[in-house]
Structures are given as C-alpha cells and as structure tokens.
C-alpha cells in the first residue's frame, strides 16, 4: 500500500478524531440513559415497570404498561392511516398520471415534511379534536386523533421514498407486463410493487420511526391519560410524551423513572428497527 505523506496522515487523523467524537456522543447518550434508568428498574423490579398498570411516580408505582401499549397503539394507528394513503399516492403518481402532475404534486407533498410538529399538533387540537368530540363522542383528545395526525405526518416520508423506488425500476418491467396483456392494475400489483418492495418497506420503516418518536404533536392531541384506552376514542399516553410531560418537575426517583421510560423506549426502537431491517433484507434477497 502507498505510504501516506505527513500532511495526508494529519488530515486523516483529524478526520478520525471528528468522526469518533460523533460516535462517542451517541455512546455517551446511551450510557447516560442506561446508567440513570437501570438502577431504579432493578431497585423496584422489572415487573413494577413492565407489567404494572399504575403510574404514580411520586408514590413509588412506576407502571409503564399503559404507555408501552399506548405507543404501540398510536404507531399502529398511524401506519393504518399513513401507509395506504402513501402507497396509493405513490402508485397513482408514478403509474396513473402524467409527468407534469408528478413534478408539481411530489414537491408539494414533500413540503409537508417541513412543517414543524407543533403546527400539526395545533391543527389537531383546533380542528380534528372538536370534530371527533362532536361526531364520534368522547373527549376528542384520543388515540384516533393522534393516529390520524401522525398518519399525515409520516405521509411525505412514505410517499416520496416509495415514488423514488418505483421510479427506479427499469421501464421494461412495466412495458413487458403490459405487452403480455396484463391490465395496469395487475402490472402494479404483481410486477412493480414486488420489484420495488425493498424501497417501499424502507419507507414504511422510516415512517414508523417518526411515528414512534414524535412527541410534541402527540402531547397536544392524545390526552395523555395514564389508563389503558378501552376504545380509540379514549385518551392515551405514549412513552415519549410521558418523558416530555413530566421532566419539567421531576426530581429524585421520579426523574430516574423517566430515564427508565427512556430505556424502554430505546429497547423498543432497537427491536422495531432490527425486525424491520431483517424483514427488508429477507425480502430483498
């Protein structure tokens, strides 16, 4: 291998230091969350955190189960809203419309991604929540409201990545399928979507990541009750909103319990990411 000159080695080394500082920040955050959160989890027993329905942190009861289920419910709800809309939009814009429409519509949808989440939350509180309260009942601040708003928030991610992966397919796939007598819908369903699935799955994973992690909008529209929701019209609290809601005043064990919430959130996101990565790898191979 070519021997590097002093100057180049210097550049390489300084780059290494900079790169390591980025990774070490990640490592330090992980270390900090776990070192703050784990002791209290072991002191009170994992059971007290994972299978307990009562969150009364100032009285020593740290049941996170409602929040774990809340996070999952809201995320699943957001996927139910966002994935069909996003996929349908991507299929329409790539297969059933002209390039002119696509050139105009796609950037507009991507603009949605740039709107701050507090604005989504505000729109949810002012428009969606009263609608739900008036027409469906319940307090309005609910699983449903959070799922709909989050579904809209993850739409641009799903849509734009799915469009890119559908557009990246060779035109011969489509042409060949049509030439063989398949209808346009058959072509999409049986040829194009399976061929683009790794990109489509990646878009769904990214959308899911945003839905799990979103905090501000959820706090504003989910109602944040610590009970298990019995219907989609009941208020719900997610893990992220649990941390953000209470961190301002928390001290002592309460504060540590919020870090424990962070530990559980961390693990859930790791598990979700791993599953998602494995499935997308399996599907593309």
């Amino acid at each position: 291998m070519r021997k590097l000159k002093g100057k180049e080695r210097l550049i390489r080394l300084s780059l290494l230091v900079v790169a390591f500082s980025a990774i070490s920040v990640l490592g330090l955050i992980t270390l900090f969350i776990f070192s703050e959160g784990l002791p209290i989890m072991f002191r009170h027993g994992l059971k007290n955190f994972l299978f307990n329905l009562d969150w009364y942190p100032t009285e020593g009861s740290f049941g996170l189960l409602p929040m774990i289920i809340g996070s999952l419910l809201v995320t699943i709800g957001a996927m139910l809203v966002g994935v069909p809309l996003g996929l349908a939009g991507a299929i329409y814009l790539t297969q059933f419309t002209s390039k002119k429409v696509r050139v105009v519509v796609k950037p507009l949808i991507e603009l949605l991604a740039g709107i701050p989440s507090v604005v989504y939350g505000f729109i949810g509180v002012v428009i969606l929540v009263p609608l739900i309260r008036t027409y469906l009942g319940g307090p309005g601040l609910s699983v449903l409201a959070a799922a709909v708003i989050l579904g809209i928030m993850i739409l641009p991610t799903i849509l734009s990545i799915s469009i890119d992966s559908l557009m990246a397919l060779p035109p011969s796939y489509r042409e060949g399928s049509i030439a063989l007598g398949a209808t346009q819908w058959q072509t999409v369903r049986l040829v194009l979507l399976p061929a683009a699935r790794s990109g489509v799955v990646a878009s769904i994973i990214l959308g899911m990541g945003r839905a799990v992690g979103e905090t501000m909008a959820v706090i504003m529209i989910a109602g944040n009750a610590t009970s298990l929701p019995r219907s989609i019209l009941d208020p719900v609290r997610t893990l992220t909103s649990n941390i953000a809601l209470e961190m301002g005043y928390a001290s002592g064990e309460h504060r540590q319990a919020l870090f424990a919430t962070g530990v559980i959130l961390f693990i859930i996101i790791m598990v979700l990411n791993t599953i998602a990565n494995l499935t997308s790898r399996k599907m593309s191979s």
Partner: protein
Amino acid sequence: MILKIDTSMLVGYIFSLKPMEKKSVRNSSLPQAVVGGLVILICLIFTSLLSCARGSREGSLTVAGSTSVQPFADQWAEVFMHHNPGKVVNVQGGGSSAGIQAALTGAAEIGMSSRELKPEEKVLTEFVVAWDGVAIIVHPTNPVGNLTLEATREIFAGVITSWSQVGWVDRPIYVVTREEGSGTRGAFQEMVMGRTRIAKKAIVEDSNGTVREVVANDPYAIGYISLGLINERVRAVRLDGVEPRIENVISRKYKLIRPFLLLTAGAPQGLAADFIQFVLSEEGQALITKQGLIPGRLVNQEKKMPPEEGA
C-alpha cells in the same frame, strides 16, 4: 437507518486505517503533538469557562425550588439585578421539595416552596411572599355553578362520572388534570383529594394554559388552574358556595389557596436579605399582583393552612 449506514461506513474506515497506523509508528510524532495540543486547548477552554462561573460567585445568589413560584422569582430577579448592577440572582426550578432541601443543605441561599412546610422542615425561616388560589373551572355553558369539596374530590377520583350526578345532563364528565409533579397538582391533591388518587382516566395537560384551553373547548370538561389565570373562556365554580375571588381568598373563606414561600436557613444575610426585602417591598409585591397573585401580607397569617378535609 441513516445512522446505521453512517456508523458502518465509519467502522470500515477505522479498520482500513489501523494497519497503516502500525506501519508508520516512527514518524507519528507530528499528529500526536497536534492531537495533544487540541486536548490541551479544549481543557483550557473548559477551565476558563469554569473559572468564569466561579469568579462571579461573590455577588451571586441562588434561588431554587417550586416551579409555580419560579416565573415570579424570575421577574423579581430581573428587576432586582437591574437595581443592583453587578449582582447576579440565579433562579432554578426543581419543585418545592427540592427547594426546601436546597435551603436546608445550603445548596441554594433561598429555597422556594408553593406548599406549607412540614413540621420537620420548620427549622427554616419562611417568608410568605404571595398567595395563590386554585380554581375549579368548567365550560362557560355549563350550568353547574356550585360543587362541594366532596363532590369535587369524587369527580376527580372518577367516582362521580356523569354530570347528572351533580345536577345537569346525563353526559360523561371529562376530568382534566396536571401532570404528576406539578406544583398546582400537588396543591390540588393536598387540599382537595387528600389521600384519594386522581383517576387514571383523567386527561393530563402540562400547563395551566393548556388545561384552560381544553376546558374552554369541551362543554363537558372540568379542570383546575391558578386563580389568576381565569379568563372569559372558562367559568370558575363556587366551592361549598364560596366564589373563588380575591376578596374571599384574603378573608380565607375560599379554601383552595396555597402560600408561595421563600425559605432561608436561619436569618437571611447579605444578598439574600436584600433580595427578600425587595420581594416584600411595594415594588416587588406590585409585580405579582398584576398577574393575579395575592400579596403575602394581605392574608391573615395566624392560621396559614386551610382546615384539613373533614376537620
């Protein structure tokens, strides 16, 4: 996912670097010197920052505790520093209990509390700088004008679940509360709920303003906020027949009130004494009256605590 790609690229890069490093150990003195220099530079920056923080300690005062008192303490500190150039007042949150602890241990010269001291905490010197009322609020169209303390407790505990049980239509009551750890929730818990827990079904909002907003928008909601923050979009309910008004707080007819305390270990000295004197002065008290609080001296201090529930 993006992060993952980055890290794997980086790990690859590091591995590709390693063997090369070994080869040229001999002439590695220059980069080492540079890295060493960098480290020293960073250390220098940090120590200078630290010494800056230390240097100003002479004329500085730390006030810590209740987050309910904090916004007012911030204003007092601002005006106080304006009057006393060169002096620094640091106001920190942390909650009433943390503030009391800080005053006891000396971590802060002045502690702030929005609850009464417990007997074992009475060793501190306390100054009642203001009183705050907590009002039960409902939607303006809600005809329920009066609630007893028991009814309020049962509503928030989730025992009474329909407005028909307190004389209105048969619609579910949506209870809105503050988050665990909030000073207002603490005061409400202590004065209304006692040992009873607030229902888990209750909607939780993280500020007086958002509680008011939810109640203003939902005809069937009920919540509680600081007395000074009531506006025309919500209606305050009479409690045991007493209107939550400033006159009734001063005469102690209205029960849901709490003191805002400044606490010192022993008699306040130096800057702490100056600050407390300023807070209790006409000017200091005028700052809080503007925002709906009641000046500390106005309320009869002989019996500070409203009578315990049932007592």
